[in-house]
């Protein structure tokens, strides 16, 4: 590795880019300048003292990271993009924040998102929406809006996110970068503001699939503070990979440019000797309803803790979308409605999982669109919560089933907005998804 620039120079370059771009893009809510410089100086010292050998212990030494403002960072304000936590400074950090720091990452700051991670556009942030770097009249997607926009606009090398119903994959797709959602239970959620506990996954946004894999190598694995996490052997079962195309994802209502771009990615895989098969996931059309019952139910429970007593402001400070989800969740769990809504959703959840289990007997992974449309305009869906919810229609099934997914960019629309596709695999099949993703990025003309 030839040393071309120091970590301090790298940080100084990113900080000046942030200073210039952020007033318009609104990706960052907090910039941790002093910490970034002190971590960069430390990185330069380690490289100077130990040379490349230091990378064995610190595989991400000098890599700049921005954390979604849902990740607790000790001593640095963490808001969840909500007025409720506008001046909250945590006394401890999330496990993933600690692990990335120990691996040598340099923290640049905290990124904007939909408040409490509720949204598909970034517009539900109580601190104003982030903008899409490809065209500032369009949304960057959500909820990890600032993280995706920041990586896309070269304001950081990597950024973290959470994916409860598509909140990493969809903004990555809208911003033309790679968005990775691990298997439910592969990465610790300790210290991250909880949205819906049976669905929340902690992942990241990067420029390439290779980077996504390297970051996952650091963040994954058991944590005594989150008992849902387990270590699992990651291996590829078959030498000749089979990729399934679910016919239920190519239905009326899908944008023609989105459809075409996914089918072109399929051609790239075919050329690389990946076998393509049509498969069926018959309960696909119900996944969004399952999600919009289970998720608000769990949201209403998780947001119950914000009472303004130990930290934060009182419950009157919740924004509209958080209030809607708390109300919806409270309603579907309330006496007389529980069986019809919540229990029925849990049962259909079983059927969505069985669809995937059956499909994965036939294929190693599934290729599908991430979003039914390319990025939409700011304000376009602001008046209809239901329409905004339907933007998640292709991403939620992976969360309902607890399986991993990765969104990969594959081109642009005629008007110059990003297009892409997602790969989904069985639980703990991350290695296979990374291999397929790298194969695509090596053989496609689009990088």
């Amino acid at each position: 590795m030839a040393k071309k620039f120091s970590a301090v120079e790298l940080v100084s370059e990113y900080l000046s880019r942030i200073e210039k771009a952020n007033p318009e893009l609104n990706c960052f809510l907090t910039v941790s300048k002093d910490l970034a410089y002190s971590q960069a100086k430390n990185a330069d010292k380690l490289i100077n003292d130990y040379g490349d050998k230091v990378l064995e212990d610190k595989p991400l030494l000098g890599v700049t990271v921005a954390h979604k403002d849902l990740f607790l960072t000790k001593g640095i304000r963490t808001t969840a993009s909500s007025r409720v936590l506008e001046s909250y400074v945590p006394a401890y950090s999330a496990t993933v924040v600690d692990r990335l720091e120990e691996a040598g990452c340099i923290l640049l700051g905290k990124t904007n998102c939909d408040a409490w991670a509720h949204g598909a556009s970034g517009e539900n942030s109580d601190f104003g929406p982030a903008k899409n770097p490809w065209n500032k009249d369009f949304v960057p997607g959500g909820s990890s809006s600032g993280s995706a926009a920041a990586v896309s606009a070269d304001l950081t090398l990597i950024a973290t996110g959470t994916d409860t119903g598509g909140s990493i994959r969809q903004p990555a797709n809208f911003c033309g970068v790679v968005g990775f959602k691990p298997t439910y239970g592969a990465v610790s959620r300790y210290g991250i503001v909880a949205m819906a506990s049976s669905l929340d996954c902690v992942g990241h946004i990067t420029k390439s699939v290779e980077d996504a894999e390297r970051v996952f190598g650091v963040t994954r694995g058991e944590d005594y503070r989150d008992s849902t996490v387990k270590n699992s052997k990651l291996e590829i079962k078959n030498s000749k990979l089979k990729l399934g195309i679910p016919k239920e994802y190519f239905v009326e209502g899908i944008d023609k440019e989105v459809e075409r771009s996914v089918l072109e990615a399929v051609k790239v895989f075919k050329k690389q000797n990946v076998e393509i098969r049509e498969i069926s996931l018959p309960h696909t059309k119900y996944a969004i309803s399952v999600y919009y019952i289970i998720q608000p139910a769990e949201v209403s429970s998780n947001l119950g803790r914000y009472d303004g007593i130990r930290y934060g402001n009182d419950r009157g400070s919740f924004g509209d979308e958080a209030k809607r989800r708390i109300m919806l969740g409270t309603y579907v769990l309330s006496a007389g409605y529980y069986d019809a809504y919540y229990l029925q959703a849990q049962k259909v959840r079983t059927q969505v999982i069985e669809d995937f289990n059956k499909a994965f007997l036939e294929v190693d992974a599934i290729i599908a669109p991430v979003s039914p449309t390319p990025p939409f305009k700011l304000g376009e869906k602001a008046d209809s919560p239901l329409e905004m919810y339907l933007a998640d229609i292709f991403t939620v099934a992976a969360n309902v089933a607890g399986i991993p997914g990765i969104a990969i960019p594959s081109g642009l629309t005629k008007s110059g907005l990003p297009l892409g596709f997602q790969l989904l695999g069985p639980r703990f099949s991350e290695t296979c998804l990374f291999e397929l993703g790298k194969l695509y990025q090596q053989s496609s003309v689009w990088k």
Partner: protein
Amino acid sequence: MSKLSDSDVKHVAKLANLPLTSEEISRFKSQLSQVLSYVEKLSEVDTEKIEPTSQTTGLENVLRQDEIRIEANLTQKESLSGTEKTHNGYFVVPAILERNKK
């Protein structure tokens, strides 16, 4: 078509401890009714012999040693650092019981 009434919305807001204005009540009433009508689609799925899923890890009864880890504990000062409303090292909470006013 699911239709919430004003009193449904007020009842749910009370359960959720959310203060709502009358403008919010009428707006949320129509927005939430729309969402509920959409998700009611699930009633058409036959689930008679299906078990519900509450989590996807397959893990059960994850246990650990019952021992104190110093690094996982906050000091009293750290615990109280999120609020200015403290008294002698305690959190100050809104009164639930009040003395009879004479």
